[in-house]
């Protein structure tokens, strides 16, 4: 029974779960779109104020959300890939994809939202509290525009002074003028009263994003240098090989520490450093493959008819290199995510404003005696990411080697 689940089934199940859990969020997103249309008609000159990064984030992930459902339902019979058997790896990678794409929809709060500390500090998972909004008579509700109201319910950037988290609901609501709603913290809260679920969702998204950008840098450097080294040979080859040897000699973490020390620990620097620090293995693979391919007939022909070097690389070499390059890059992706979280765990990076998995683990390590949940869930997510990506790369490698052995026999 379970073995017959195909990928599109799994995707639809995940969609269904999201719909069930985050229905309110979706409804208020539709409301937001409606309000924005109204505003666009009435105040066209205010367009820059309306589209803040939050709004764009929310709208784009909502658009992908709707587009995804329509795509999966309408193309499920036409695309073979969607009808593949859904293994555990594919399922977990679907989950990660969901977190990456739909973070604003999935996360109940913003990742830096702090509730009032005495009640919200270190709440255990699944603990429910009451979020009370006190309506002040002086600043009446009606003065707020509809846009502001929707924005308030959607993003909850920071708790405004009239929101309070209480353990019991206020009994006589009408006399004070308050509205209380019950909220549940699925994974609990951390030391500063922030919701762990939201933090994990955003942190996962950031670490995946860092990994993807770093991988592009790694791929660019590795392929270019490997091609140059293998294609030209001689002194260039020796020099580049020695440089790769030198980078290999310094352990990864030490190399990153050195670069971060001198170039600063901003997010961009960390991404670039993580990308640059892992180019050696790709370089070696590409170099040896290019050396082998260089004497093939079609490559020699392409040289003789006067193809430019970059054209040769893209059109003649890359299609043949692709399986091994892709496998290596996906392995690198796994290592980069681990390295990033280890670095922010050590406190070397991760002073940026968003949440990071390693930073959460570090914070949980300091509170290990009192609260196990702060550390447990980020750790699980990191393991899940590494397991998924590594498994994927392993499968890809097996396919690649099978193909190669098939063609040589």
């Amino acid at each position: 029974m379970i073995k017959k689940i195909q990928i599109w089934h799994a995707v639809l199940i995940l969609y269904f779960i999201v719909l069930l859990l985050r229905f309110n969020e979706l409804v208020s997103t539709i409301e937001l779109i409606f309000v924005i249309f109204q505003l666009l008609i009435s105040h066209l000159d205010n367009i820059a104020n309306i589209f803040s990064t939050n709004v764009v984030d929310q709208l784009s992930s909502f658009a992908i959300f709707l587009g995804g459902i329509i795509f999966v339902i309408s193309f499920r019979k036409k695309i073979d890939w969607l009808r593949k058997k859904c293994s555990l790896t594919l399922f977990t990678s679907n989950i990660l994809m969901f977190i990456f794409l739909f973070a604003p929809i999935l996360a109940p709060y913003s990742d830096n939202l702090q509730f009032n500390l005495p009640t919200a500090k270190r709440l255990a998972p699944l603990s429910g509290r009451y979020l009370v909004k006190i309506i002040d008579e002086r600043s009446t509700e009606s003065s707020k525009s509809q846009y502001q109201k929707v924005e308030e319910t959607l993003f909850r950037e920071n708790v405004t002074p009239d929101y309070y988290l209480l353990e019991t609901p206020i009994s006589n609501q009408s006399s004070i003028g308050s509205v209380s709603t019950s909220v549940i913290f699925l994974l609990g809260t951390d030391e500063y009263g922030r919701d762990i679920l939201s933090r994990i969702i955003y942190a996962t998204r950031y670490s995946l994003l860092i990994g993807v950008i770093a991988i592009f840098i790694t791929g660019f450097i590795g392929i270019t240098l490997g091609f140059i080294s293998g294609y030209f040979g001689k002194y260039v080859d020796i020099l580049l090989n020695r440089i790769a040897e030198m980078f290999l000699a310094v352990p990864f973490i030490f190399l990153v520490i050195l670069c971060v020390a001198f170039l600063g620990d901003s997010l961009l620097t960390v991404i670039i450093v993580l990308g640059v620090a892992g180019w050696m293995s790709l370089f070696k693979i590409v170099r040896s493959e290019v050396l082998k391919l260089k004497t093939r007939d079609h490559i020699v022909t392409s040289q003789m008819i006067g193809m430019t070097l970059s054209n040769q690389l893209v059109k003649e070499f890359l299609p043949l290199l692709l399986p091994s390059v892709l496998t290596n890059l996906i392995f690198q992706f796994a290592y980069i995510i681990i390295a990033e979280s280890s670095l922010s765990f050590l406190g070397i990076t991760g002073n940026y404003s968003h949440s990071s998995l390693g930073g959460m683990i570090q914070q949980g390590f300091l509170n290990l005696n009192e609260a196990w949940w702060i550390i447990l869930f980020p750790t699980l997510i990191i393991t899940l990411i590494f397991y998924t990506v590594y498994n994927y790369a392993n499968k890809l490698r097996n396919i690649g080697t099978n193909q190669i052995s098939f063609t040589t026999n």
Partner: protein
Amino acid sequence: MLGMGNKLRMKKKWIEILSIFFSYVFTFWLLISMIFILLRLSPGDPALKYLSPQLNSHLYDYVKNSYGLDKPVVEQYYLFIYNLFRGDFGISYNYRVPVSSMIMETAPFTISFSLVSFIIQVAISMWVIFYVHKHKGNWLEKSLNKISLFLYSLPTMTIGLVLIYIFSIQLGLFPLSDVHSTNYDELNFFQKLFDLVKHLTLPLITLSLPGIIIFYNYLHGNIEATERKSFIRFMIANGFDKNIVFKKHVIPNSISPLISILGTELGILLGGAVITETLFGLPGLGRLTVSAILTRDYPLIIGCVFFSGVFVLAANFLADLYKLKHDVQLRENFKNL
């Protein structure tokens, strides 16, 4: 005739060794240059990376003179290389002692820690492989094949944290941090040994577990590949004892590629030691580096990175030499057959 050939071979061997040596010297020079370029690239005055207002005037002048910080760049570069060769890495900001003495204090611990971990990794993975080979298709092999990927996907810090949570905090069996107890000096020899073992068990498990799985997978694949080769099949078909064939022919043939990944493995170990030492509060090179970067102690960072690089380079060099010798021996053996 035979002597001539021997001499020629000896000469060729020396040339090979020399070329390997010079390529390593070149790599070494590149490493120094990279550190120097990074130092110059960094925003702010590079000279101030070696000088700090925390140093007293005597040390300030000493560093300024030895690094030529008021001289042109080329001369600074020359002095930089000269100083690194002398083992003078400058004065640490925080500890106000020469960086080299700080490294000499912490490096022995990290090196012996990594070495013990390496021995444990090799020993346990070899034992598991022998066991699995003896009882093929038993529960251990099946479960190892299934969970090895999962175990491998546990990051070092996760393993450490789980061990700390279960064994130190919940069960209270092992101490949380440090390498020995406070009353270490009063204990007798066996108590000292017991104390050390008690303190280092969890860190060693943390550092060794990923390595064991890597070695196991690597050796397992190699052994299976070797067993499929024709000379092993030939021997077994001729009625040699299977165990003897396994011990004398399969293992030596599948273990030699292991030497070539020794340097890389050492790099992984040093990287893992950074996290392990920080987690368990051990006084090693890794924790020194982390504390150095957290306080922006530039001379100390340069010293630690340089030392780790040199260490791995040296290991790679030895592995290369071993490979050279090993391959020659293999060739000789084949000729004698």
